[in-house]
């Protein structure tokens, strides 16, 4: 912790901001210290931490002081962390929060997440070492490049060995995962080939395949996530699953539709339904495929696509021509209306008000 230097937080010329993240706490080694809630900024030259509650409290460390970094995943009740191992402080270092300390590393705890991107960017900066090409004022540049004949602190050697082992272990895990994944993909590819050949047979023998079998085939495709090359007029890419879904949707959406003037955009429906489900969510495609079946199944809702591409669900009882006529009346009554004002009046979303 004694490597930090007080700073104003303003960037120098030639120094660029790379990424920033709120909600970061600093640990001195394994100990929590008073710097528990701050914004962490990564520039091309430094790592800067500013207290969220007191903006005056702002400190930085030059990236050149960093030996290496590790990731520590989150656990139950623990946020994910990045461990930053540091070179010893140079003798001419300016004032900082601590004058001396026993640890040669600090931890950054990401209480509001963001560690994935931050780690990636920090690793990039450590690799690129842009601070070496873009000199800034001497006040925070310390000469820490690889110097021949420099005596390394014993602690660092031990740390590096531990890192090497950890890297090998992680590599092994990852490569095993990738190996297994590749084997799995080979099998998946076989499924794709088989489905293609069946699809071709169906195309050749139009009408000789029963409805039942087509539906079975489609559900197989759905399980594997293979795009359906054969579309039948009545049910499109839908399957039994989508038919059931369509019926469910008709039940769920009746009331919300009535509250919103009989019409809702598909995005609104997507959010509404998935928020209500909580788990086993619908994919956007599931929703679209189910909605395409509404009319065919003679349900009281229907899917409609405007010229602009906007897709909506509306009640069968909703007559757009009447709506347009009444909208025209409303607007002429008021002289003029923006889409926002109209939306408020009728109680519908601005997007749909625009369409009308």
């Amino acid at each position, binding site marked *: 912790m004694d490597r930090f230097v007080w700073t104003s937080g303003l960037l120098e010329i030639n120094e660029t901001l790379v990424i920033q993240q709120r909600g970061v706490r600093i640990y001195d080694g394994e100990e929590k210290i008073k710097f528990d809630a701050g914004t962490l900024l990564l520039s091309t030259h430094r790592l800067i931490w500013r207290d969220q509650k007191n903006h005056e409290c702002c400190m930085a460390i030059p990236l050149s002081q960093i030996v290496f970094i590790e990731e520590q995943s989150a656990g139950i009740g623990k946020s994910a962390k990045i461990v930053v191992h540091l070179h010893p402080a140079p003798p001419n270092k300016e004032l900082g929060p601590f004058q001396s300390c026993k640890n040669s590393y600090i931890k950054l705890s990401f209480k509001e997440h963001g560690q994935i991107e931050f780690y990636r960017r920090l690793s990039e900066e450590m690799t690129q070492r842009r601070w070496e090409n873009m000199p800034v004022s001497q006040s925070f540049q310390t000469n820490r490049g690889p110097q021949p004949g420099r005596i390394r602190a014993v602690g660092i050697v031990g740390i590096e060995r531990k890192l090497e082992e950890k890297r090998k272990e992680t590599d092994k895990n*990852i490569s095993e995962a990738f190996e297994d994944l590749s084997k799995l993909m080979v099998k998946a590819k076989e499924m794709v080939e088989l489905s293609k050949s*069946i699809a071709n047979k169906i195309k050749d023998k139009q009408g*000789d395949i029963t409805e039942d079998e087509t539906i079975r085939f489609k559900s197989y495709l759905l399980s594997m996530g293979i795009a359906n090359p054969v579309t039948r007029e009545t049910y499109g890419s839908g399957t039994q699953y989508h038919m059931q879904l369509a019926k469910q949707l008709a039940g769920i959406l009746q009331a919300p539709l009535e509250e919103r003037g009989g019409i809702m955009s598909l995005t609104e429906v997507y959010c509404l339904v998935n928020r209500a489900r909580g788990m086993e*969510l619908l994919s956007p495609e599931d929703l679209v495929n189910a909605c395409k079946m509404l009319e065919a199944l003679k349900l009281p809702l229907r899917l409609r696509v405007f010229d602009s591409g906007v897709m909506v669900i509306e009640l069968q009882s909703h007559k757009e021509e009447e709506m347009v006529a009444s909208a025209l009346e409303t607007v002429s009554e008021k002289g003029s209306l923006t889409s926002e004002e109209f939306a408020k009046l009728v109680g519908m979303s601005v997007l749909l008000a625009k369409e009308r």
Partner: protein
Amino acid sequence: MHRRGVGAGAIAKKKLAEAKYKERGTVLAEDQLAQMSKQLDMFKTNLEEFASKHKQEIRKNPEFRVQFQDMCATIGVDPLASGKGFWSEMLGVGDFYYELGVQIVEVCLALKHRNGGLITLEELHQQVLKGRGKFAQDVSQDDLIRAIKKLKVLGTGFGIIPVGGTYLIQSVPAELNMDHTVVLQLAEKNGYVTVSDIKASLKWETERARQVLEHLLKEGLAWLDLQAPGEAHYWLPALFTDLYSQEITAEEAREALP
């Protein structure tokens, strides 16, 4: 039987032959479908095994997620196509991305009044993380992009526009053509753009520059600043947060404006 006409017998024979042919055709497909069904069951078992060993990897390791998605795309499989798909059910990738989709829509809706429906990927990322709270799984920018690509299916014109090394996410179906996009990319440097900037960098005539800026104004993506020194500045609120390395409170923002 001799009472039947000769023609009838021939027709009957033909019908029988046709029926047999149909049967065979159906049998062929039936065979293959049965085969597929068996292979599907086997695949499901393999996937279950994979999931039991590596499900955590997918959840925790964003690079692995990327690899996984790329491999699926190569062989022609979309693991996110349906919540009912094996991939989604056994690896849990579905819920992860579909929920992210909902969160993205909500953030865009909440900020639309400010930026007209245009937001940088960085800001979207920050806002989504904030909304997800402390105990949720972290997400990478790649995850956001994939979720957005899926949202496009819903027809409301989610767009992804590359600008200066990052992306602008468009959540409102404003008509944006090449001209508009190029001006957005120009504005990314300073957060604003002027007619002179456009003429100097893109070598357009005044009229063309004016039309593009008018359109951006109309769509609510740009704000007009007539008090700027020199000529009118067209600011893009979507690009604001990128410019500051400090967090500015509302107080400071008010004081900073001329």
